[in-house]
């Protein structure tokens, strides 16, 4: 029983990472109805920026907010420069551009910072959390940050004017434009926020997995799994989905024996396919009805 509990808790702390990734996936999905395959690489690049600033001697409470701001601007810029011109292009063009972005960011990071792994210190410090044998300080910090971010986003979309405009722009671009909302700017803002959330996810995960250009590929897959499981239209669903993926992954790794531990990525694959086939709208998502 203690093993089970231990696995659940460590699953939740891994899940916090996936929840962050899933949250940023959902942010972009809300804005442009596309899955950004370069999301993980954007997060990785942001994490490198944070690492570089800390390596230059900046304290973490300056470096991390700065990184988040840079990521926000970066995501905004990517939408403006690369995606604005092909807004109405077919899906294939978008997917190809995502892949292009993926390749560019991945190899640029390798070019600038080398492919050797770097370790990153946790801003929450080392050691167990409040003397608990089950949870480290960093893990507790990750869970806390994820929940704070979720509440913050909820408040942003619920109570601020910009948040309301973004929701309107996503729900019905035509009508939103007619009431004076700058729809394309809202889209770009969605990109910026997704990049910023991705940066937080990257910084949270770097102390756990070490920093290297390919670190995000599998995390992104779990993030997608979490987003799909929770529902691509629901930020809360994405976070719940992310935590669930973390728990499922850990339990499978423990109780399915050697196969479970070796097949962690395939678990995400199976999860994605099962959810998409059985319940494509996810746990908390809206059903999308297509009009002919």
């Amino acid at each position, binding site marked *: 029983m203690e093993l089970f509990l231990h696995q659940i808790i460590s699953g939740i702390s891994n899940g916090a990472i996936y929840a962050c990734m899933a949250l940023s996936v959902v942010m972009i999905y809300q804005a442009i*109805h*596309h*899955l950004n*395959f370069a999301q993980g690489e954007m997060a990785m690049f942001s994490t490198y920026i944070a690492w570089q600033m800390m390596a230059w001697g900046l304290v973490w409470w300056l470096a991390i907010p700065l990184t988040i701001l840079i990521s926000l601007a970066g995501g905004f810029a990517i939408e403006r420069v*690369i995606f604005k*011109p*092909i807004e109405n*292009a077919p*899906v*294939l*063009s978008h*997917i*190809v*551009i995502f*892949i*292009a*972005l*993926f*390749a*560019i960011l*991945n*190899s*640029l990071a*390798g*070019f600038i910072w080398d*492919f050797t792994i770097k370790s990153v210190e946790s801003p929450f410090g080392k050691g167990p959390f409040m003397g608990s044998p089950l949870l480290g300080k960093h893990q507790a910090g990750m869970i806390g940050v994820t929940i704070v971010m979720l509440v913050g986003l909820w408040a942003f979309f619920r109570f601020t004017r910009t948040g309301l405009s973004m929701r309107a722009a996503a729900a019905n671009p035509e009508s939103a434009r007619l009431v004076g909302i700058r729809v394309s700017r809202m889209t770009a803002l969605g990109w910026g926020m997704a990049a910023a959330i991705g940066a937080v996810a990257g910084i949270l995960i770097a102390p756990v997995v070490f920093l290297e250009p390919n670190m995000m*590929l*599998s995390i992104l*897959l779990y993030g*997608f*799994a979490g987003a*799909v499981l929770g529902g691509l239209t629901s930020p809360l669903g994405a976070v719940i989905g992310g935590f669930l993926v973390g728990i499922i992954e850990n339990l499978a790794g423990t109780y399915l024996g*050697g*196969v479970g531990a*070796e*097949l*962690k*990525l*395939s678990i*995400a*694959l199976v999860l*994605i*396919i099962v959810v*998409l*086939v059985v319940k*494509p709208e996810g746990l908390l998502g809206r059903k999308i009805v297509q009009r*002919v």
Partner: protein
Amino acid sequence: MSDSVVTDTRPSPPAGAETRTHRPATAPPARILSPGNIVAVIVLAVLIVLPLTSKSFFVFQMNQMLVYAIAVLGLNILTGINGQFSLGHSAFYAIGAYSCAILVEMVGVNYMATLPLAAVICFIAGFLFGFPALRLEGLYLALATFALAVATPQILKLSVIEHYTGGVQGIIMFSDTFEAPVPFGLPMESSTWVYYFTLAVFVLVYILAIALIRSRTGRAMMAIRDNPIAARSMGVNLSYYKATAFGISAMVTGIAGALSAIVIKFVAPDSFTFFLAVLILVGMVIGGVGWLPGCIIGGLAMLYLPNIAEQLDDVILLFARPLGLADALPGNLQNSAIRLSGVIYGFILILLIYLAPQGAGGLIRAVVSRLKWLKS
């Protein structure tokens, strides 16, 4: 190699009526000496003569190019003809390669006989994967196949099947003879024979692909691509044709994988990562989505894009030297430049999407129509 992706808008004849399709009376007569066919014959002739005049390394490269071209052709059948996406064709490439390697090394099947077997295995794998994927439109299919591509190397390394797959080490092919044996006592080197074998398979697969497109099945697939709802209301069974397209596409890419195992004589899990899937996608986009002859251009692109990245360090030095920056550059610029290859793929892809979304096929068509316009 004329442009074969013309959506046929004629309704299919009702059941019971004469099912043979006739060319409409107004259609121009089919010409054997059309420009497309002439180019095709010239390309084929060049490919046949090539090993007689070139160094063996170049022949090896062209062999790889043909293998890549088959893989691109496979993806094009799915994306260009049926309008479905896949970021996971590296998985089917891997299944083909491993089927071939295991059959040759463990079972002792002749390597040429493994191709049909690998094709059948890949068709089944693709069909089965395509079946749940059917319910997934565009983006979701891309997501599911993305997951497949990312998970593939891990599945191949699984310790339960390590006895067959060789785990992380992979499988070395032809461990007894060191090279693919030449059949019938033909007087040529093994590499030359493998080249001609690949070329023959390529031509066969290409002809079959064209036949597929011109068949009823092919037209149904294109109808689904152009308008799924209209196709369905005309009686096209969406799930059947989509899964079949997925299966055929996986089969063709799997054949390419099996050939790659024969050409490179080695398979290992880390050759079949997500980046291979990206490379196949890049090849397809460069060649032209939905334009089958583009597969050769796509194969060339897949082969030479990494080399372009290697040339880049010379270019960087050319600009850095006059500015006095040469010393500031990292010493192993060569290696760093290779790392930049992803940046180059990326920029080429973005430029293509902006400037020539139809790829090389679109460019050629534009040039041809401009020439015709000038002549008239």
